[in-house]
């Protein structure tokens, strides 16, 4: 036994010695070391050849150039295109995170058909053949039933070939109801149309202006192409003066030369007050006012009636009165008016934040009148009108009887009708019209392309109610957004990196610049270009509708539309017109009744609409709610780190949001410490925010940069659809704010709502 034990010991010693002298322990130790460094769940991205593909970002209307870095043809990063005239290499966080939209968890990967209750999230995957056949059949039936006008289509824009193609489809089908979302540019466009008689997108030459008087416009919060404005700011921040007028210290106000707090909703009064000083001190551009303007002084019409002129209107807004209305000191008003009038290229800007709400036409006219007072119209560094893109002519749509009958019906949204003759689209009115219709909904089938009205329209509850009354909804979205979630069919579009799309001059840009978004990768999922979907539906509907689309696919249609510009666009990505193309100062004839710039917009004289004064007098824009019950005012604010439009935030953008904006699932409402103290609220306290439209759980963020009595919530949160990276975070301001109809345009002009805040 003893021998056995010793032998065993000896054997062990031998083994130990042998093993030590063999590579085994040392090699094993090294391998274990390596093993602990290579966890299999840590991804190893594939390496390969680097290439770049250039395109235009279409996540917002800004139209920036992008450069997509690819490895073995696999996109790995989006960067700004250095050669692009707008962004010059820089890019906003939305554009920067574009690849998250390509591969993101909220992408729709194939055509879907709803099973189960609407909005329940139960879908069946179907083939494209089935999907197109089903949708065509439904549309065919509706048309056969004699009501083609009950088909409506909602899009985010009417500019570019895709919406034009859709509108063409509706025309051939027999429905006038192509409706697109409105923005602040629509009000500006209308103000320009009323005063100058010119149709087209407003061109605001920030590039060459030297003094920007912004009435709450978020020029650095995502307005007018975020990257373009940032680029300009970076280049000129020491030379251009920016005066930001709004009740909240926004990022634009942070960067502005001067921030002036104003009682919310009184911007028009300030504009008239400034006009008062400018006129009184004779600081206005006399050449412009005398030779090319109409309605500055009082005038007598053919009937001998004396009409009040703009000067007289402004005369009734002396600084002390305006000071009372706006809360801005008299001296500040006077000095601001002088600074504005004495600048060489001053621009007054209307439209709050990113401009997602059109706003009041009166306000817009009052502010635009300032531009006219200093004569900064239709010239470099001023405000001008950019005509739409010059597409090659398509063959005219031949309409059959059904179509022409349908096309003669009035638009469902009332735009262009007797009440609002100068307005093209009134999407904000659609929910109200559907909800108030007796019997069947006037919309029997709805197609939604590149839009998410169930999120972006004010008063979400009413919108949802209206959509529930529409029997057939088809979404063409690439993402499972709120509207797609409510649809019956989803015919998913390619993502913006997988498709061709022309990009017309971005809103606000003062010179024509068209771009072409090109596919930088083959479609990742089983999707189809929305243009192709429409063409194929048209073809299966047959007859005159089919004949209206003699193109094999969208690409052919696009090529024909762009005609001789195609090659240049396809190679370079964009075509830029230089400033030289702008009309010379004052050489421009206005298309108004008087052929002059009309301070007194004659076109506005609408006998059918007695609610409207022709001159833009200041009447406070009413907001919903009773002062007693709702002592505070809630305003929405825009942030460049939040996408509040139909494209929702990327996970990366949401990651950049401060914890003073969103904390876990709860949004923080900004409140001045003085107001908070009165309410007994402290930082991070839980509270309930109640407005006449709804209520929301919020947390308190004490912010010195907001006017006492005012609350602010960010736009772009509170999604209910998409993925868990976006849904159920904060509250959608549109749940809390309803639309207010502008009497003269019908647009939504709500800038806020009355509110009450109670500690939870």
């Amino acid at each position, binding site marked *: 036994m003893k021998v056995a034990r010793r032998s065993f010991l000896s054997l062990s010693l031998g083994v130990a010695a042998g093993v030590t002298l063999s590579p085994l322990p040392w090699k094993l130790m090294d391998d274990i070391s390596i093993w602990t460094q290579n966890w299999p769940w840590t991804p190893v991205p594939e390496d390969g050849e680097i290439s770049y593909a250039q395109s235009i970002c279409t996540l917002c209307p800004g139209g920036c150039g992008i450069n997509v870095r690819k490895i073995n043809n696999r996109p*790995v*990063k989006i960067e700004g295109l250095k050669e692009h005239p707008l962004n010059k290499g820089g890019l906003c966080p939305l554009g920067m995170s574009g690849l998250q939209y390509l591969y993101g968890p909220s992408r729709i990967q194939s055509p879907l058909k709803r099973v189960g209750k609407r909005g329940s999230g139960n879908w069946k995957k179907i083939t494209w053949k089935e999907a197109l056949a089903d949708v065509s059949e439904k549309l065919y039936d509706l048309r056969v039933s004699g009501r083609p006008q009950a088909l409506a289509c909602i899009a985010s824009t009417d500019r570019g070939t895709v919406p034009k193609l859709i509108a063409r489809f509706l025309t051939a089908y027999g429905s006038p109801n192509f409706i697109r979302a409105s923005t602040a540019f629509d009000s500006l466009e209308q103000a320009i149309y009323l005063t100058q008689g010119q149709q087209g997108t407003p061109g605001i030459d920030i590039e060459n202006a030297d003094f920007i008087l912004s009435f709450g416009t978020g020029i650095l919060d995502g307005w007018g192409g975020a990257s373009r404005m940032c680029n300009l700011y970076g280049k000129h921040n020491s030379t251009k003066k920016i005066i930001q007028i709004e009740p909240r210290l926004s990022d634009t106000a942070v960067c502005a030369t001067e921030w002036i707090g104003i009682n919310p909703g009184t911007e028009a009064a300030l504009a008239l007050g400034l006009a008062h000083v400018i006129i009184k001190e004779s600081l206005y551009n006399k050449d412009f006012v005398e030779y090319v303007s109409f309605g500055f002084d009082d005038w007598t019409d053919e009937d001998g009636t004396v009409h009040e002129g703009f000067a007289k209107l402004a005369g009734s807004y002396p600084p002390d009165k305006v000071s009372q209305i706006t809360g801005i000191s008299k001296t500040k008003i006077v000095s601001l008016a002088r600074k504005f009038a004495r600048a060489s290229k001053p621009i007054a800007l209307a439209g709050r934040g990113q401009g997602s709400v059109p706003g009041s036409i009166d306000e817009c006219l009052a502010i635009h009148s300032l531009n006219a007072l200093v004569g900064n119209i239709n010239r470099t560094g001023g405000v001008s009108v950019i005509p739409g893109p010059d597409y090659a002519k398509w063959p005219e749509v031949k309409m059959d009887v059904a179509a022409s009958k349908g096309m003669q019906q009035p638009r469902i949204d009332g735009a262009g009708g007797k009440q609002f003759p100068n307005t093209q689209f009134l999407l904000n009115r659609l929910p109200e019209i559907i909800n108030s219709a007796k019997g069947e909904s006037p919309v029997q089938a709805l197609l939604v392309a590149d839009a998410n009205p169930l999120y972006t329209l004010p008063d979400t509850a009413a919108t949802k109610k209206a959509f529930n009354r529409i029997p057939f909804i088809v979404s063409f979205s690439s993402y499972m957004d709120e509207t797609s979630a409510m649809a019956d069919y989803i015919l998913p579009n390619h993502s913006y990196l997988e498709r061709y799309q022309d990009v017309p001059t971005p809103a606000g840009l003062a010179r024509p610049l068209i771009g072409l978004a090109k596919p930088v990768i083959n479609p990742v999922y089983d999707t189809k270009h929305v243009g192709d979907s429409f063409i194929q539906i048209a073809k299966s509907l047959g007859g005159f509708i089919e004949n209206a689309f003699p193109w094999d696919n969208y690409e052919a249609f696009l090529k024909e539309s762009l005609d001789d510009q195609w090659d240049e666009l396809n190679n370079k990505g964009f075509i830029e017109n230089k400033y030289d193309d702008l009309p010379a100062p004052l050489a421009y004839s206005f298309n108004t009744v008087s052929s002059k710039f009309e301070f007194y917009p004659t076109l506005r004289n609408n006998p059918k609409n007695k609610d409207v004064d022709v001159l833009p007098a200041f009447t406070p824009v009413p907001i919903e709610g009773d002062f007693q019950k709702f002592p505070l005012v809630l305003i929405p604010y825009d942030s460049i780190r939040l996408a509040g439009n139909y494209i929702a935030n990327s996970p990366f953008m949401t990651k*950049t949001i401060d914890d003073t904006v969103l904390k876990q699932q709860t949004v923080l409402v900004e409140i001045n410490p003085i107001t908070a103290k009165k309410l007994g609220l402290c930082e991070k306290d839980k509270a309930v925010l109640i407005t006449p439209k709804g209520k929301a759980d919020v947390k308190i963020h004490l912010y010195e940069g907001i006017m006492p009595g005012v609350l602010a919530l960010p736009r772009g949160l509170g999604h209910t659809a998409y993925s868990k990276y976006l849904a159920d975070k904060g509250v959608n301001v549109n749940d809390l704010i309803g639309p207010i109809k502008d009497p003269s345009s019908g647009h939504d002009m709500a800038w806020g709502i009355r509110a009450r805040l109670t500690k939870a």
Partner: protein
Amino acid sequence: MKEKNNHTKRFGMVIDLDKCTGCGSCMVACYAENNVPFRVDETNKLDSLSWLVVHKITNGKPYPNTEICYLPMPCMQCDGIGKHGHSPCVSVCPAVATDYDHETGIVSQIYTRCFGCRYCMAACPYHARKFNWWDPVWPADMKKYLSPNVSPRMRGVVEKCSFCFHRYQQAKDKAFYEKREELYEDEYQTACAEACPTGAITFGDLNNKNHAVYKLKKDPRAFRLLERLHTNPKVYYLTSKSWVRRAGDNYLANEEPGKIKQEMVHGH
């Protein structure tokens, strides 16, 4: 003393706070460039992975005299006391998972070496170092956009801004291929500098007279964060606001930011 190598570079950054609008592009550019993961809830900023954080600082005055300044903070790539690379974090790492590259002045972080003791995080006064509290997850097909130039990190290790060092590696690759000794200024730029839509971020070799940062760091508006701790950051800031400058370091009531800097320069 140690001037044998005149090729020594000190890559650094100058951030013009007067130009920063707080848009956050630099952050997103950084996430996208460096395979930074994201989580469902990113609102706890103290456990969020972000190599570059844009801080929002305020002068604290009541409405309407409130002022705000956005302050983007990447890793400061400290040269440390005496500028020998003894940055606060490098000397404390027990396993040489982080070191100071004397060729470029960049402080590295090697994830496969790091075992997660977090001593470097304790040492960094700028909170530039972040810990991977969770395993990274890229939902759906998002793994497909990962870049092979930066290795993804695993749970339990520290990560931080590398001044996009992989871009330097790539630029050098090209320079070797073209048989060049030197890089062009625009050849090696960080993702944040490139993305910044206002051009507030300038990047380059602080030792190279021809680079923009060389001049900018001498701008009278220039300062660095916590200079008094002798961390010697290679990230400079420009501001024309005195309160911002004051917020950049700690001062006793009677001290003037500019004067303190003078003493420091002469004193050391």
